[in-house]
């Protein structure tokens, strides 16, 4: 298939997933931080702003302090923020428009409706009913994924959508873990506080109930981290997502008589998977967590670059210290 089309489908999926995950993060933490102590709340919100990369100069310039209002405004609505939910949804829609012939009309309608939902929403109302509004956005984003799966033939175009979706999800879960792990450390002395934070962390990844069902009673840092990183069955766990990515690359590779010109994405992904699969969780707890997650995100970004180089022939971006969220390259 055309590189441009594959790229648009891939990024459409990535942006929708990003929008969904950030919305969930905001919704859960808005709820959780409502009854936190002011100092904790501020720290909490500050750590959330960093979800997309290190200290964003734009946020610091625009808002005096990090609180529910400013962070929601910045992460959800801010048009100048390339990773705000609204920006992501707009970009997803632009991509979908360019490949309207390759997606089903139901998909296009769903993407379009999500877009108009954010465009037409009264911001004041949305903030007053933040939880409901966020739930609505999240539902619509998930609906798109379901519609995609049900109405597209599962051939190469669909595989690129899945690739984008799962790569983004792996990235997001890792980032959420990174963000919240540091914040967790404030509460190590108090078991009840600690539990609350772990629950919030799990909820931020929609993992609380599945976790409960699987780990009968244990709510400690080690188990939670393990669950989010290397669980095989939970669909937002990093390893689960990477396995799915691997599967799509294999499907894409098989879909032809001519072999792909570079096997690099598959090999890099395979290695990352293996490292995660055989990870000793004790080696990364405590102060090792942050460098570990940073390395992980860097490697994930490199895989994204390699995918672009192999399938889309676009220019490459170099990863940062703490890697920034990848953006679609304009051609």
């Amino acid at each position: 298939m055309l590189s441009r089309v594959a790229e648009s489908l891939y990024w459409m999926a990535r942006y929708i997933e990003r929008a969904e995950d950030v919305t969930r993060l905001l919704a859960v933490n808005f709820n959780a931080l409502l009854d936190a102590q002011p100092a904790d709340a501020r720290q909490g919100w500050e750590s959330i702003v960093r979800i997309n990369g290190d200290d964003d100069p734009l946020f610091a310039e625009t808002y005096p302090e990090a609180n529910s209002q400013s962070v929601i405004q910045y992460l959800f609505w801010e048009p100048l923020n390339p990773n705000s939910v609204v920006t992501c949804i707009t970009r997803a829609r632009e991509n979908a428009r360019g490949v309207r012939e390759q997606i089903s009309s139901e998909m296009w309608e769903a993407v379009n409706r999500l877009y108009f939902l954010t465009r037409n929403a009264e911001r004041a109302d949305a903030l007053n009913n933040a939880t409901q509004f966020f739930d609505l956005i999240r539902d619509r984003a998930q609906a798109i994924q379901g519609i995609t799966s049900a109405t597209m033939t599962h051939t190469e175009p669909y595989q690129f959508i899945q690739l984008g979706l799962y790569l983004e999800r792996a990235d997001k879960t890792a980032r959420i873990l990174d963000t919240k792990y540091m914040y967790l450390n404030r509460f190590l002395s108090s078991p009840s506080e600690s539990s609350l934070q772990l629950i919030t962390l799990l909820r931020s990844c929609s993992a609380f109930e599945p976790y409960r069902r699987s780990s009968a009673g244990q709510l400690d840092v080690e188990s939670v981290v393990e669950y989010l990183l290397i669980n095989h069955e939970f669909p937002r766990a990093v390893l689960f997502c990477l396995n799915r990515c691997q599967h799509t690359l294999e499907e894409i590779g098989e879909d032809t008589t001519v072999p792909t010109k570079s096997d690099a994405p598959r090999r890099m992904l395979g290695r990352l998977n293996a490292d995660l699969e055989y990870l000793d969780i004790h080696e990364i707890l405590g102060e090792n967590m942050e460098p570990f997650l940073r390395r992980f995100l860097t490697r994930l970004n490199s895989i994204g670059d390699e995918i672009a180089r192999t399938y889309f022939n676009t220019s490459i971006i170099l990863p940062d210290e703490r890697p920034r969220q990848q953006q679609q390259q304009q051609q």
Partner: protein
Amino acid sequence: MVKLKLVMFDSVLSTLYDPAPFYDEMFSAVGEPRPHYTVLRDHLQTITAEMLAERRRVADAAFLYQGITFTVYGQEQGIERIFPFDLMPRIIPHNEWDRIERGLAQRVTALNLFLHDIYHDQRILREKLIPSELVFSSRHFRREMMGLDVPKNRYVHVVGTDIVRGDDGEYYVLEDNLRSPSGVSYMLENRQVMKRIFADLFGRYDVEPIEHYPQELLNTLRSVAPHEYSDPTVVLLTPGIYNSAYFEHTFLARQMGIEIVEGRDLVAHQNKIYMRTTRGLKLVDVIYRRIDDDFLDPLAFKQDSELGVAGLLNAYRAGNVTIANSIGTGVADDKAIYAFTPEMIRFYLSEEPILNNVPTYLGWREKECDHILNNLDKLVVKAVNESGGYGMLVGPHASQSEREKFREHVQANPRNYIAQPTLALSCHPTILEGQLHGCHIDLRPYILYGDKVTIVPGGLTRVALRKGSLVVNSSQGGGSKDTWVLRD
């Protein structure tokens, strides 16, 4: 009879519909349908208002559901509109079509030879049959094409020729469209819709099919591939989603089973054209392009064009790719050159034209220019390179100030204008606001020219949907009908 009250068109058909003073396709006189329309008239007399409304509803839903739209220029959001469709079919008897078909084939052959001649030996210019200045001053004459040999010597592969019928009952060619004629998707969808809502009528008429157009188009494109490959790669090059005809581009690409690409999907390498795919570069043999010459290659034409492919012209020169239609074909559909088509037919084919041109006055000729300026109130004046009904003055319908403004245009650049007498275009019963009215129509058959000429019977009948209007273009309030060519 009780039934009379419910029937939609009975009274109209028998007493109220007066075709005069125009040639009416359906009626020769009040209440007297032409022989090939009798069955339709009889059928219409059984249709009630409800039935009609139902058919209208089905038709509208079909078009909407299929997304058969076009985008109106100048709208911010790119408003998509359904191209208005009239339920009354336009019927052409076989013998009439036969003549049209032969006339078109003759015309296209001559035009193609003209293009080859203009870009090579220019014999017709040396014989002074056509003034050289007229050719070289045409905006679409491309120096770059001089001496360039194109695959199979075919310049025009897809032609849309507009034909009208005058009040003498004769067909005339109004103009040829040799660059990127559109509308064929409407022709195809109109037929699909008619089959749904008038299935019974199809049983009573023997109508020539048209659904094979996309296959014929594909065959045509493949037959002009640059080398003798068994399976040439054909692509459709589109300007993209913001183009008003984008729907048609995707429609045709899908029907032909070929890839639809934009300029940025193609790359020139070692004078060959490749598509950028997830498997790497794939060689492209034939490009069916719906992009104007100006935007095709930023290295050769407009430098700031982002729609084309840098290096395409070089690949074309090297003979490694076919461009359909070729570059520089616009010189032959320049309205001033159009006036010389009969000369072309005589010169290249030694034949008399089967289909005649509409009498045309050239602004370029001083005496004719004077005639134009003195008769602005009676003539239709056209800028030679516009389309879509723009750059046109319909003298009898224009206001004094509009005519004066046009006078200034013509005087400033006489070579750029031609004029034709206001044709009394034929009319056809059309449903306007629930009533049958005679509306002016034309006909645009689509001619394919690959290894041979192929013309799918009929074409798009366009209808002016405003009472008394002569403008049939979609962008200015026109609509279309299904065209039925009858088998013998």
